[in-house]
């Protein structure tokens, strides 16, 4: 089966395989996975993907979900069509 077609982050097109590969390389910190793959940084702000990523980390490392910190939620928490606030509150680091 083609793991590369299992999409975890719809907003930024990140697959299960890409995340598992990072974990296999020893990168298990969710913030670091976020920086490297841009999961959670799309217009939905990770609402779809972060829970899935946490489950992958839990499954592969044996950690409990409770032990995995949730990445920060930033303003705006919803996609903003007009580019409003783009300067004042940019959430891309």
């Amino acid at each position, binding site marked *: *089966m*083609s*793991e590369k*077609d*299992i*999409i*975890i982050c*719809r*907003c*930024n*097109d990140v697959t*299960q395989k890409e995340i598992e590969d990072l974990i296999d390389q020893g990168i298990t910190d969710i913030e670091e996975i976020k920086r490297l793959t841009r999961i959670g940084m*799309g*217009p*939905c*702000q990770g*609402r*779809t*993907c972060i*829970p*899935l990523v946490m489950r992958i980390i839990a499954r592969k490392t044996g950690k409990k*979900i*409770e032990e995995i910190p*949730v990445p*920060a*939620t*930033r*303003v*705006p*928490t*919803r*996609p*903003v*069509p*007009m*580019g*409003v*606030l*783009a300067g*004042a*509150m940019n959430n891309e680091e």
Partner: protein
Amino acid sequence: MRLNEHPILNFQKRRGKKIKIYFEGQPLDAYEGETIAMALHAAGIRVLSYSGEKHRPRGLFCAIGKCSSCLVKVNGIPNVRSCITLVEDGMRIERQQGKEEIPKTVKPPQWKDAIKVEGDVVIIGGGPAGLMAAINAAKAGAKVVLIDENPMLGGQLVKQTHKFFGKREQFAGVRGVKIAEILIEQAEKNENIELYTETSAIGIFQENDRKLVVAIRKNKELVEFWGKAIVVATGAMEKMIPFENNDLPGIYGAGAIQTLMNTYGVKPADRVLIVGAGNVGLILAYQLLQAGVEVKAIIEAMPKVGGYFVHAAKVRRLGIPILTRHTILRAEGKEKVERAIVAQLDENWKPIPGTEKVFDVDVIALAVGLRPSIELLHQAGCQIAYIRELSGHVVRRDARMETTIKGIFVAGDAAGIEEATTAMLEGKIAGISAALYSGKSNISWLKEIEKTQKELTEFRSGPFGKHVLEGIKKVMVGEINE
């Protein structure tokens, strides 16, 4: 395709004026009062955008504004959530290609132009929890402002065509849609409640003893809602699961399918496979049949059906097979779902080779659970915890629904996944508590809070409630009210 005949709902009466919209230059019929995604779906359009990196087709998923899977360009402006944006005559809609910039000619609204609205209590979310919070905060003496990002108030209730279970005399046996109508009418009639629909809260801030909710109205206006207390009743979001091609257009959350057929009268599909045999999956199967859709099967990974026996028995009687210990392996189709491949699971939850079955369906419904929508509370700085019994991360709060930030309250599915009755009771408690916090109410209202807390405890005394109570114990700060 649109639904014209339905045993419970009358869409011909509900639809507004017929208008024209343009999709990729092609004219299409639409009706006033429906959202862009609904009109496009009715015209057979499933692909709403292509993703940025891998150029994969994408369509609807949640249909309530939460997943951002339905972004389109409207009159040249990208990032418009088509599922909650109403059609307008002459609107030009195009598929979005990944991330797109706003045209140079368009001037985004400025902070200094933001409209300012003042109240004692600002409520985010107009589902059963938010509406009850508004009605009761207003009764208790507060000036209330309620905002909701959907064009219609009522939250998840507006799509529940079935009669409600539960033992509360007031609403048991009443259809969800009807409960929504009753609450909306009460809120609309109350002079102390101001209602803003099509208004998305995007951030919560604090300035001295005042709180600010920043929102975007109708995709273009910046609005500042100021108040002393805030109630967050933002509901829940549907869960996604990993399987091959799980982003193919036509893989919809159960709630999205209900929105299509029960709220807007659009036939969601011809043939459906449902993933998940909890109450939501079972009820959905039944509602799909009412809308004239064929349900091929319901698959469930667990060894037994999760939903109530009565619902399962009804579904089986109607001839829909329920395959337990089965999972979905992949969706297939070119630009949209054409087939679903499922397989049986062994004791270790691994698919058993050779047990694959193919279902020719055009929609796959995911009824695999909901998760509390806590993003605003998290952004505001409220403490959160992962509580399995409440279906995900939730905020810590006390028996009056106050979070770890004074003056910010939570209610309904956002506080933990339960059901409409508990959402309404929690909403009432949060609303009165917020009114008290704002200083506009008097302590005689504490009695009403206590009474409602008792009702909640009573309601949760059943087997399902026990599980929830375990979870609530874990999130509670301060004294536990039982």
